């Protein structure tokens, strides 16, 4: 029942969103509660098994999924509140996208069977488009187009992987995939799914859509896109392509390298941006690099323990924090000191300053990486690099801070949802950690480990300001822009299909005249008489011969 409520309520709001007037208003009012409804199955721990639906939907929240559920419920509800007050323009389309993506996300979180997950994933991917193009500006269309192209590119990989899984196990119960006997022999699907979901996560070089799409959406939409929806990709990895329990030692370093590269590249590229939301989007890319690192580490945990915890914490922390930061973009954070503080805290948290939730997450991430290093599967340098990623994050947060402070329009109200979300970002991960037994005792060594990268970042900032060199500026979406130019040059106009003249008619005319002449000739009695004689002679001969 709780599951049903969680699934149906977003659909109901979506339905209301298609109407206008009072029903639509009701739908908008319900939107925060629709997302909060995800807490119900979380509390009830209900397992639903709807065999009648689609190919059989199994829904429920496993313990390790809890942070994702919490993230979705909290971030989405508060963002919905924010959106209720701020979104203008074609609200129908927006709320349709909003409700449907929520529905999809809820399914992704709840999914315990293959089809259920895929259903949710597709819904969330497509519905997000509606939010991205909300502005209806040229830039929005372009971002939407690029988003769709890449989403479907990812979709191609995902559907291939899903079909491979389905081919082997049917609409398999996802929990089974993480068990050794199932996990074997699925290299093909795992590779496909890794790539497919990587698009959603914005792993370099599949990230190009993200800096375009996330910022262009309205503020609350950006918040959930960057904070929550990217986690759908992560859930995809974890649920469909679990690497725990298999011998992935060979691949793990590569994944790790890719993750670190994304972490640094995302941050560095973000530094070249001039818009706050874009910078935040690049930050998301960077953070997802860390997620990939944790995912790589998962390969060394037979039960997934440490890495899974790290991932849960990372997701929860980043989701709430990033959502809070995005909401800040809609509240003129530079307008007052209080607002600046409200921005600074999550920013520091993201940079993993001690005592923040980011610190907590980073600590577990380091532990996960350590496991790999201890096993000798990962190079030692990994640890350092993970630590250094905080420096990169700090730098990009610095950049964000600078840009945020330019927004000082006091007329823009401070929306309570922002404040609440910031608060949630700072506290909720701790609560969950406490509840799940993941609390980290504060220690000097731990604090130092968290602090030196920040100090390094500070040093770099100071150095940069000292040199006074203007920063490099790259267009949003970096490589995609060049790709577009390339494509524009080669696109050929579609050739119009030529209309064929009715040649058959003319041919028939000619043939007709020819045959008419022939017939006329044959009608001549001498000719037909001759023919008759000939036939007779031939017959005589063949009868004679035979």
């Amino acid at each position, binding site marked *: 029942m709780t599951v049903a409520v969680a699934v149906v309520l977003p659909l109901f709001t979506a339905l209301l969103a298609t109407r206008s007037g009072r029903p639509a208003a009701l739908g908008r009012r319900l939107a925060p509660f629709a997302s909060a409804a995800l807490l119900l199955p979380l509390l009830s721990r209900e397992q639903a098994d709807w065999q009648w639906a689609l190919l059989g939907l199994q829904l429920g929240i496993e313990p390790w999924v809890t942070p994702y559920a919490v993230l979705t419920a909290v971030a989405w509800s508060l963002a919905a509140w924010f959106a209720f007050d701020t979104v203008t323009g074609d609200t129908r389309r927006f709320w349709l996208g909003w409700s449907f993506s929520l529905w999809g996300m809820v399914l992704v979180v709840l999914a315990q069977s293959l089809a259920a997950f895929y259903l949710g994933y597709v819904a969330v991917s*497509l519905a997000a488009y509606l939010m991205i193009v909300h502005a209806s500006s040229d830039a929005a269309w372009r971002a939407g187009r690029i988003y769709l192209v890449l989403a479907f590119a990812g979709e*191609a990989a995902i559907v291939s992987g*899903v079909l491979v899984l389905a081919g082997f196990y049917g609409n398999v119960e996802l929990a089974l995939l993480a068990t050794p006997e199932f996990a074997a022999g699925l290299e093909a699907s795992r590779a496909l799914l890794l790539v497919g979901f990587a698009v959603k996560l914005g792993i370099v070089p599949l990230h190009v859509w993200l800096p375009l799409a996330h910022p262009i959406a309205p503020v609350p939409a950006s918040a959930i896109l960057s904070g929550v929806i990217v986690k759908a990709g992560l859930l995809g990895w974890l649920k469909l392509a679990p690497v725990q329990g298999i011998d992935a030692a060979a691949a793990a370093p590569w994944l790790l390298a890719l993750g670190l590269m994304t972490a640094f590249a995302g941050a560095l590229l973000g530094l070249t941006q001039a818009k706050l939301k874009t910078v935040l989007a690049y930050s998301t890319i960077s953070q997802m690099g860390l997620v990939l690192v944790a995912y790589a580490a998962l390969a060394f945990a037979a039960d997934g323990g440490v890495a899974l915890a790290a991932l849960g914490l990372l997701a929860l922390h980043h989701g709430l924090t990033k959502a809070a930061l995005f909401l800040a973009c809609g509240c003129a954070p530079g307008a007052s000191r209080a607002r600046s503080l409200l921005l600074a805290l999550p920013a520091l948290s993201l940079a993993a300053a001690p005592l923040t939730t980011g610190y907590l997450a980073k600590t577990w991430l380091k532990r996960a990486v350590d496991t790999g290093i201890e096993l000798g599967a990962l190079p030692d340098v990994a640890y350092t690099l993970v630590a250094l990623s905080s420096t990169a994050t700090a730098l990009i947060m610095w950049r964000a801070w600078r840009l945020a402070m330019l927004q000082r329009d006091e007329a823009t109200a401070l929306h309570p949802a922002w404040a609440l979300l910031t608060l949630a970002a700072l506290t909720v991960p701790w609560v969950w950690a406490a509840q799940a037994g993941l609390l980290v005792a504060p220690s000097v060594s731990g604090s130092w480990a968290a602090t030196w990268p920040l100090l390094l970042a500070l040093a770099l900032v100071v150095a940069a300001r000292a040199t006074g060199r203007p920063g490099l500026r790259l267009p949003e979406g970096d490589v995609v822009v060049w790709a577009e130019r390339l494509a524009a040059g080669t696109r050929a106009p579609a050739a119009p299909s030529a209309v064929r003249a009715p040649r058959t008619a003319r041919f028939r005319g000619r043939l007709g005249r020819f045959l008419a002449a022939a017939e006329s000739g044959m009608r001549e009695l001498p000719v037909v008489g001759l023919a008759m004689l000939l036939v007779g002679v031939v017959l005589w001969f063949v009868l004679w011969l035979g």
Partner: protein
Amino acid sequence: MTPVAIETTLHPLPLVVVLVSLFAGLAIAVLGEHQQRLRTVLNLAAAVVKLALVLWIAILVVGGSVPEFRFALVPGFDLVLRADSVSVLFASLSAALWLVTTVYAIAYLHRSSNRARFFGFFSICVTATMGIAMAGNLLTFFVFYELLTLATWPLVVHTGSRAAVRAGRTYLVYTLGGSALFLLGLIWLYALAGPQDFIAGGSLALVDLDETRALQAIFVLVAIGMGVKAAIVPLHAWLPRAMVAPAPVSALLHAVAVVKAGAFGLVRLVEDVFGASLTSDLGLAQALAVAASITIVYGSIVALLQDDLKKLLAYSTVSQVSYIALGIAVGGALATVGGMVHLVHQGVMKITMFFCAGTFATLLGVTRIDQLDGLARRLPWSAGAFSVAALGMIGLPPLAGFVSKWYLGAGAVATGQLWVVGVLVASTLLNAAYFLPLIARMWLRPAPERWPGGTTPSRLVVFGLVAPALFTAFCTIAFGVLAGSSYSPLDWATEIVRGYVP
């Protein structure tokens, strides 16, 4: 598995179900042009009665009996009408969609001329389709298959325009050419193995034949006959041209009757005549799979290049219908289910789109893709139905198309033919590439100040145009969402395949 001849019970119902629409068609033709009200009543009544009869048959079949009616067409060669579960799958699709299409057609043609002829042949067309569905052997199938050709031709050329007549000619060139080969294959088969009824698992499996080459040739001949109607590349060229026909005809052609009959024929050929294992042993399944795959990709690519909405839909059909062939060619339980169920799923999805396309053209004069901008503001319901169907075509869950794709892909993997997944994915992407822009145009672009044309008929007519599309769109959703429930198309297809693949 050794196929076993099924127990049948003599029952006139299969014949009756075929004849209902025949008599309706004849009566409509006899009534003449001006008995509009009576014609409408007759049309709808026949459709409803037919649907009821098909349901009755379905109930019988569920009860485990196989009603059959047979008589000797040529001594030694029986005309067999038999309702097994495969028949019911196709028949119920046809009957249901006929009802819907009839409603639509009555609205669509509310001012057209020659309606008596149109609806007469329309009904006969459904007769043929029912016959195809109920055919119990290849000869019967052929008979109704040809009847279908004949009955649809007047529908294709209905408008009598030059383009229509030319399209009709193309249609005939292809279908009659194909059926000539079909007939040769049929004769050959009968010469080789004697007359045989359809048997799940393949009637030929019961005959011990050591004639590899001949069997291959027969298969190819018959498959070409089927393939023409199923629009397998390169036998598809008639289909886009036939788009000049009125929208209900296109809808019927693509979703219920012609194209589907071809695909259904391939199912029968592979599963009930040759049997999946023999087909595979002869190397024919692989060939068919390749042909279907090429069709799927090619159709999609060409669809991408279209400017005309109906043309685009036509090429989309070319692509989509081959899913069915692909499914049975890939073989194995899952893929076969996928192919079977796509028979129904493609039907409801594509008919929705044609309904909508016709509605757009009638009400707003919109026929080209670039005219779709902002259309959802004027016709939100139709646009919605169209969008749902299009998304289903792409294969997005929880819509019907997804279920098909799921089973096809999974089946391909299960039988170790991973490349088929590639084909499916490519098709998905291409489908998305040509359908999503349409949806985006309709919903996201601003509407033009003036629409290209169109008429403003009465509310009842508008309802008649929109409601059928909504219904089928609803089916598209329901068949997907409720795929796992009993008596869903998927469930039915699974039951069928249980007879084919142990």
